[in-house]
């Protein structure tokens, strides 16, 4: 108990010096380990993320980026270590309601229409004023004219945009994106960037994985490099320039 209060005090102190004022960290990972097929995929991951940060997680394929994101989304449970989101365990339902996740797959039912898909997810998340919210989201991703067509007939770009609407439907405070810049069409990218800018304005926290630093840099306020399941480098208060970053990246992932 006393240890914990001490820890939070410490946390608050460091926080006040670095960041704007707030009560708890959005993400607090302490010595996270995750194995798959009894092979370590992530080892010794510790970091803290405050509210309103946009964190880019970089690294080559197989570095554990997706696994880390899935841990944060409570799709996986850590093998050992402590992970808290908004001050409580990541698996708690109240926490999960605050997390939005955009993965490689759309998680949309192909035989349902966009409206039905969003209604289902909205009910599951207990979104207030669901109808208005869905209309607003569909307009945001430019699919309001397609709302009664089953998703099966959608193009890939449309499905991705709808997936974005799904992930943002419950206005998450922590938004997790897995490789948002691979395989998106230009329109989806511009919508995504608009959403991220908006999220930044509203002091929401964003974490995204990428292996394309140049395109993601302007969005991020912080960066991590993962290599072979470990954090190889974490940015300081300011992000390095693109050239510096490339050098760092090659040095870390050698």
């Amino acid at each position: 108990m006393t240890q914990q209060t001490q820890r939070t005090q410490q946390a608050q102190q460091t926080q006040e010096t670095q960041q704007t004022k707030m009560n708890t960290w959005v993400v607090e990972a302490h010595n996270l380990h995750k194995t798959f097929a009894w092979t370590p995929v992530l080892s010794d991951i510790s970091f803290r993320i405050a509210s309103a940060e946009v964190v880019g997680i970089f690294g080559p394929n197989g570095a554990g980026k997706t696994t880390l994101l899935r841990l944060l989304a409570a799709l996986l449970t850590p093998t050992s270590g402590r992970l808290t989101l908004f001050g409580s365990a990541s698996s708690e339902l109240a926490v999960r309601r605050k997390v939005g996740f955009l993965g490689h797959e759309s998680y949309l039912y192909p035989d349902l229409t966009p409206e039905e898909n969003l209604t289902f997810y909205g009910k599951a998340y207990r979104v207030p004023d669901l109808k208005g919210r869905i209309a607003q989201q569909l307009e945001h991703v430019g699919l309001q004219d397609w709302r009664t067509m089953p998703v099966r007939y959608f193009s890939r770009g449309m499905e991705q945009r709808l997936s974005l609407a799904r992930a943002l439907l419950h206005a998450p405070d922590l938004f997790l994106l897995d490789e948002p810049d691979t395989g998106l069409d230009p329109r989806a990218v511009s919508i995504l960037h608009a959403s991220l800018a908006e999220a930044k304005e509203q002091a929401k926290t964003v974490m995204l994985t990428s292996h394309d630093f140049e395109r993601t840099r302007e969005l991020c306020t912080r960066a991590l490099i993962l290599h072979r399941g470990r954090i190889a480098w974490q940015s300081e208060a300011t992000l390095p320039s693109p050239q510096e970053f490339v050098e760092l990246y090659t040095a870390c992932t050698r």
Partner: protein
Amino acid sequence: MWAILWKDLLLELRTKERVSSLFVLALLIILVFVFALTPEQLKQPAFGSALLWVALVFAGMLGIQRALILEQERNCFTGLLLCPIDPGQVFFAKFLSNVFFLTVVEAVVAPLTLALLGLPFSVSLLGLPLVLLCGIVGFSALGTLCAAIAVRTRAREIILPLMLLPLLVPLFIAAVHVTGALLAGEVWTGTWFRVLVAFDVIFVVIGWLTFGFVVQE
């Protein structure tokens, strides 16, 4: 939980895939048996009840598996797990939707089977819906749990019956006996019925408790 159930029903209304395939399959199984047996054998209540349950178990197994494969198409199950819903509730939703679809199918297949076999309709048959429902509940509870395991392994078509059928032995024996007694117009609420209900209760609880271990990755 109701959201999942609502979505399952909507999906079924849209595709009509599960109920129709279940229905045809159940009928086909019964037909195969009718061809294999002599008319005298078919008139016996014991055969009638055995037939009903064989059709239900085999068609139901495929139906339950189908439901989860549907869920896997765009990894929707992951989307479901992202939602702030307790795994136990996910289990109940899936379980109830399986119970619902099997009941709908059985509501048509059971009377049809009795008619096909030429079994007399009598007052004692009023208990049949209850017995069928009890069987469906136990079957769906265990089936939902096993299918959730099987669906994410290789060779899922083989592994599901392999796991499910031996575990279903008590349910199957009990259900066949109760139904047989019922069709013969005998007392059916005896020990066998209690075994059936015990199976239901135990496996609904077990499914609810262990589903969390099965669905997380």
